[in-house]
């Protein structure tokens, strides 16, 4: 079974490329993406949560 890191980090890597790499033709309008901050944040929260749960479990 894959852990949270292997499930989520690759998606962030792809999103990072889609938003920050690739050809840009100067002068065009750029649309924003609703919730992209939440995509990044959400994945970070998931990772942090998993680690928090693991840490708590280890202490019990």
């Amino acid at each position: 079974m894959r852990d949270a890191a292997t499930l989520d980090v690759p998606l962030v890597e792809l999103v990072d490329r889609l938003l920050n790499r690739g050809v840009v033709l100067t002068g065009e309008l750029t649309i924003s993406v609703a919730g992209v901050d939440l995509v990044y944040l959400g994945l970070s929260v998931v990772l942090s949560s998993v680690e928090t749960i693991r840490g708590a479990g280890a202490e019990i």
Partner: protein
Amino acid sequence: MTLLLRAIVATEDARVAAELGLTAVPATGVAALASAWETAGAAAEADLLDHHRVIQAIFGRVPCLPARFGSVFADADALGVRLALREKDLATQLARLGHRCELAITCAWRDSGRVAPATSVPASTGRAYLERGVARARTQKERQQRADEIVARLLGELAVDPAFIRHRTCPRPAVAVSMSALVTRDEIDELSSRLERLGAQLPDVTTVVQGPWAPYTFAVSE
């Protein structure tokens, strides 16, 4: 009709637009492939991932330069004007990159929560605050050093022309190394096998190889 730019292809390859339901805006040597864009307001995550699917569909058929997500033009004429300004540069990039693939290699820390965020629970005393800061800085330095070691291992294993490699160390708390390698399709299987073997020798990170993708990282904006 508002258009969302998807990719740049050679003019003679613009025929793929029809089979993919795209609009082709040709210049002399290159053409822009775009989709009708009618969404009001901001795009959604699904639109972002759909952009990747469209680019991969194009890249699976012909060499292309992927466009960064979000480039919208009022109509085909507006796109054509901008394309003409960059045509020579884009044709050069396409010839150099278009037939190559990007492999994304990510090494994620197995214990991604070890570095405490800077804005955690306030320290009860000034001494505790300073000790926490020192411990965090020490951990981050150790991680940076380890990430540099991992990069050296990856570069040695890949043995790819340095001009075809881009990497960042510790770009996010969970990630030790984010690397992009520009490779030919016939190199993919062997490189993936070598990276898988190397990944098994790196106990502190999970190594994930993704691709082949269109060469996002190597398509230069200006």
